[in-house]
């Protein structure tokens, strides 16, 4: 398309995308600004700047307990989710088995389901079973939503995995376990790694499911919501900024890591 009129289009698209990106990050910027005030209430423009609330938040025992709860839940969810999703992804993307198509749709269903309703349903269910809600039940709740997402992520990697690689390894005398260790996992690991990242971040940031299933325990998002509604302190945007920046570091770091390893592999090959 060499027409003169065609030349401004990529530029226009670029500008539009930049505007959208700004739109997406504006709240985070506002959050960051709101965390840098010294006063207890938020009034813009900020007259007294300072890192006071950052210090207060991290020194707070209450916040420390929250962080511990959130991180523990997220780590355990990640570990379990990756394992279950690994097998699920293989079932999702390979082996033309009868019912695979129905399986795919079934697995995707929880992702689209309104989380608040799912949270309530799980609360009801725990109640009916006589199980008391705590951070442990929250883990289970998170898994129900997180595992399908991670399954999807890993299946994308499985789709481009050539089964002939495993067959070749088998043919060369490897046991099933060795095939898994030497061929399957190394080739799939970018997918597994991405899946793990997703699992951690989705669990860490989850609110609707946590709200109904953590019982007496509290996660960071729950705490923040409570404070948003009543008892606002700049500690809320502090935690918000920490979440955002933390997610950014994890994602960019993870993506960078995958790129490095991939480049290293093709370099060596």
């Amino acid at each position, binding site marked *: 398309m060499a027409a003169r009129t065609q030349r401004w289009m990529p530029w226009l698209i670029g500008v539009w995308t930049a505007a959208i990106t700004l739109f997406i990050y504006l709240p985070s910027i506002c959050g960051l600004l709101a965390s840098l005030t010294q006063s207890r209430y938020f009034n813009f423009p900020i007259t007294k700047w300072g890192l006071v609330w950052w210090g207060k938040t991290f020194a707070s025992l209450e916040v420390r307990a929250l962080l511990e709860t959130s991180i523990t839940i997220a780590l355990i969810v990640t570990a379990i989710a990756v394992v279950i999703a690994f097998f699920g992804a293989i*079932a999702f993307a390979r082996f033309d088995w009868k019912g*695979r198509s129905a399986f795919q749709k079934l697995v995707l269903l929880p992702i689209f389901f*309104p989380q608040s*309703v799912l949270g*309530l349903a799980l609360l*009801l269910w725990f109640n*009916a079973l006589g199980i008391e809600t705590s951070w442990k039940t929250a883990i289970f709740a998170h898994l129900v939503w997180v595992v*399908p997402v991670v399954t999807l992520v890993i299946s994308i990697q499985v789709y481009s995995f050539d089964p002939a690689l495993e067959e070749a390894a088998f043919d060369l005398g490897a046991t099933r376990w060795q095939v898994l260790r030497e061929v399957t996992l190394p080739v799939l690991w970018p997918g597994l790694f991405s899946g793990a990242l997703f699992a951690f971040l989705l669990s860490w940031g989850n609110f*609707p499911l946590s709200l109904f299933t953590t019982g007496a325990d509290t996660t960071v998002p729950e705490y923040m919501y409570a404070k948003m509604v009543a008892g606002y302190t700049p500690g809320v945007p502090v935690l918000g900024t920490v979440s955002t920046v933390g997610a950014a570091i994890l994602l960019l770091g993870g993506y960078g890591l995958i790129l490095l390893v991939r480049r290293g592999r093709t370099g060596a090959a």
Partner: protein
Amino acid sequence: MAMAAERVGRSLAGWLWRPGQRHAIPILLLLLIGFAAPLLSILGFSFAPPRTFSLWQLPTLENYRTIVAETFYQSFLWSLGMAVVTVVILVLICYPVAYGLARTFGRWANLVTLLMVLPLFVSENVRLYGWVLFFIKGGVLLGSLKSLLGIDVESVLFTPGIIIFGMVYVYLPFMLFPMTLGVSMVPREVTEAASDLGASRLQVFREVELPLAMPGIVIGCLLTFVLAIGAIAEAKVLGGQTVIPVTHDIEIAFTYAQNWPLGAALAVLMTLLVGGLVLAVLRRFDLDRILGRR
């Protein structure tokens, strides 16, 4: 009799142990216990007498009658309406970006994708609260307007408009990525051929690009619509109590109103609506081809 049962059992076990099936077992178990069962219990609860808390009672249709008789249909309509508006706005906003990601950005596409994906991992409440800080009286927007230009305006918060704004904000990636996938599936040479055969830019778009990108666009719309119907945070955080979508009604029923069966009935109706839609549209799509099976 016992022999036949044993044979059936063995062949069932054999079928289950085939590679595809057995890999599916862990996740299916999880979904059975964690998804299907709770939903079934909600279904059960929806038939329980109002304001009771036990599942094991005689069934009644009282809750459904209440929903129809009272004004609960309003919240359904609000949820549906807001979801539709959100989808329409997102289609218009996202197409240029999807086109850029699939065609124009080249090496930058990955970076832009990453930037767009990142917010998904931050809690909804956090992000929406950023908008509260922006739009609230004395917040970033109004505070700047007042101090710099002396303009004192009412806050846009707590209106239906801002709720839709919030929904567009939250669900943007879910429209963007399927759409990008759709646009990327339009072979470049086919658009060149259309141009070569005399079509203007607009005609190329209408005759070739749009029809061929349609599967991606439809999936984006479906995904966004389904998620938007389940939206609750936007209405609560940005909208206050101006609009009560059906999800909020369900929550209220479970918490303040202490009427679990009613909440359950509302949830059942909502699930039927959403689930029916998802299955109807997904049935027409071959997920393998879209996700890239070789």
